[in-house]
């Protein structure tokens, strides 16, 4: 397979359409954003199992819960802001508490939404979804990993939140390398001895590029793709922290409650005491701009990860 530059929302829509026949119980719901979440690809392939719920996200999550209670596998898609955010309580009480087999796709997550600005740039979705007992939280990095994650979430019994992005992203994987995609198991992409870079989503290629920048300065960085925020691969996190003695987490999300905090909690639980820095959006709202321009402005690029890595390495 060739490297491919694709938005994870597109990979998501394509994969749903590809799996329609294999999963006869699959029903896809959207809230008037199907052309953006790309569930329109599924709708074109399988119109009889696509239901547009209109601009009514709270009802959509309830409908999804009812479908799941009747044996269907509903996938409810809208922007992360309007599922994890607006419909948080519906997800908590109607989906999470009864542990129903509902899959929630939150697209257009993070500042890379771009021009729409702060109201549409959800930076809290992973934090919110992590608080729900039994919820699995996925954040795939690229086209191939999204394909694997979509299949993985359909095979998984129970509620899943999958975080997807608007911008096309360079692939870090090839299809064959994801045969072992397992929910809850991080992927070590690069070995290293001086610092561990733990990244998720769009930050995975940035972390790989950061490792190159660090190598040029004689610093050996390990890079892991933490595609599952919950349950976190605590074993891999602790192992890399022990081995390298310094950790940088990288996520296009608030520094509060996301990957960084999940890693800190795992390190505390494992009693691994190493310097840690979180590359994330630092408790502020986003604003309008170009997608990658904002990733740059908010300090989420390879150079920022590399700078953080040098700081934590110096604190060892």
């Amino acid at each position, binding site marked *: 397979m060739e490297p491919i530059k694709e938005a994870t929302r597109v990979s998501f829509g394509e994969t749903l359409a590809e799996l329609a026949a294999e999963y006869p119980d699959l029903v896809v719901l959207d809230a008037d954003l199907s052309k953006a979440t790309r569930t329109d690809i599924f709708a074109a392939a399988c119109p009889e199992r696509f239901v547009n719920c*209109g601009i009514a996200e709270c009802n959509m*999550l309830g*409908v999804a819960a*009812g479908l799941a*209670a009747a*044996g269907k596998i509903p996938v409810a898609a809208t922007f992360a802001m309007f599922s994890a955010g607006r419909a948080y309580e519906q997800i908590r009480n*109607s989906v999470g508490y009864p542990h129903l087999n509902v899959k929630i796709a939150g697209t257009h997550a993070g500042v890379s939404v771009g021009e729409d600005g702060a109201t549409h740039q959800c930076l809290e979705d992973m934090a919110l979804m992590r608080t729900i007992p039994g919820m699995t939280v996925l954040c795939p990095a690229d086209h191939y990993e999204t394909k694997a994650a979509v299949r993985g979430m359909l095979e998984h019994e129970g509620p899943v939140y999958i975080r997807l992005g608007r911008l096309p992203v360079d692939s870090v994987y090839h299809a064959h390398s994801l045969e072992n995609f397992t929910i809850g198991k991080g992927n070590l992409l690069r070995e290293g001895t001086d610092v561990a870079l733990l990244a998720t989503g769009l930050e995975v290629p940035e972390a790989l590029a950061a490792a190159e920048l660090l190598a040029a300065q004689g610093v050996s960085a390990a890079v892991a793709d933490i595609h599952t925020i919950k349950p976190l691969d605590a074993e891999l996190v602790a192992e890399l922290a022990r081995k390298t003695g310094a950790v940088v987490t990288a996520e296009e999300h608030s520094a509060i409650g996301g990957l960084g905090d999940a890693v800190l909690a795992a390190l505390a639980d494992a009693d691994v005491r190493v310097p840690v820095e979180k590359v994330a959006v630092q408790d502020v709202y986003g604003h309008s701009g170009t997608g990658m321009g904002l990733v740059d402005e908010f300090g989420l690029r390879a150079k920022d990860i590399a700078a953080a890595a040098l700081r934590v390495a110096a604190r060892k």
Partner: protein
Amino acid sequence: MEQSERSALRRAAARLRLDVLEQVFTAQSGHPGGALSSADILTWLYNKELNLDPAQPRWPDRDRFVLSKGHSSPGLYAALARRGFFDPALLPTFRKSGSILQGHPDMKKIPGVDMTSGSLGQGVSTACGMALAAKLDGASWRVYTLLGDGEMEEGQVWEAAMFAAHNKLDNMCWIVDSNGLQIDGRVEDVAGPGPLDKKFEGFGFQVLKVDGHDFDALEAAFAAARAEKGRPTVILATTVKGKGVSFMEDQAGWHGKAPNAEQYAQAKQELEAELARWEVE
């Protein structure tokens, strides 16, 4: 309806109200007012309307019931226990730690509960999802959901109403327990969600108005709901909050309060007299 059938329903409703009283008194917690106002509706549903098999609570072709006004849980629990879904001896464990009988309905713990509910406005959306599933499968089972008139103030109810009508969910029947009261007072004074008949007509429902304590009227309304094609039905059932216990009737204060020993004794006496009355006839 034969008089003997009507008397049997009256007995069952009096038994259900006694069960509600016992649960709330034993727990010293819970919501008697709305459970008593909806007692006749629940009695009709669980004795006459719903196609169920207590031996197979998860039977795929059963009719579904979602108690969107989940705080009326003691009424639902009484109906399920008396229908044989679980031992009525469990009713006094209502709201106690370790009991399956949670404060609000829990589908994972209680046999016969089709959906976890309690956060107002949410149950009705889940009922829409079930009705959609039946449509997708071409199945003939139906979905019933009971809401409160105060619950009509939740915006999600109207999102669900649009969804049900747009998707022509004629396999679902909503029942609004219109007892006119909510925690803070009269529904019309607190937020005034009416006129519900005109609103539901505007949303594309078949609207039926009945006395929610009249079994003949309920029988006719549910038959009309089953016969309707192409649109969902809402039964606006006018009821009396606290029905059957004189001092609780039409009193907002009994929305979510347990009686003390003296009040319990009086309520029990009144409901036992009602039970005895229909035993005789």
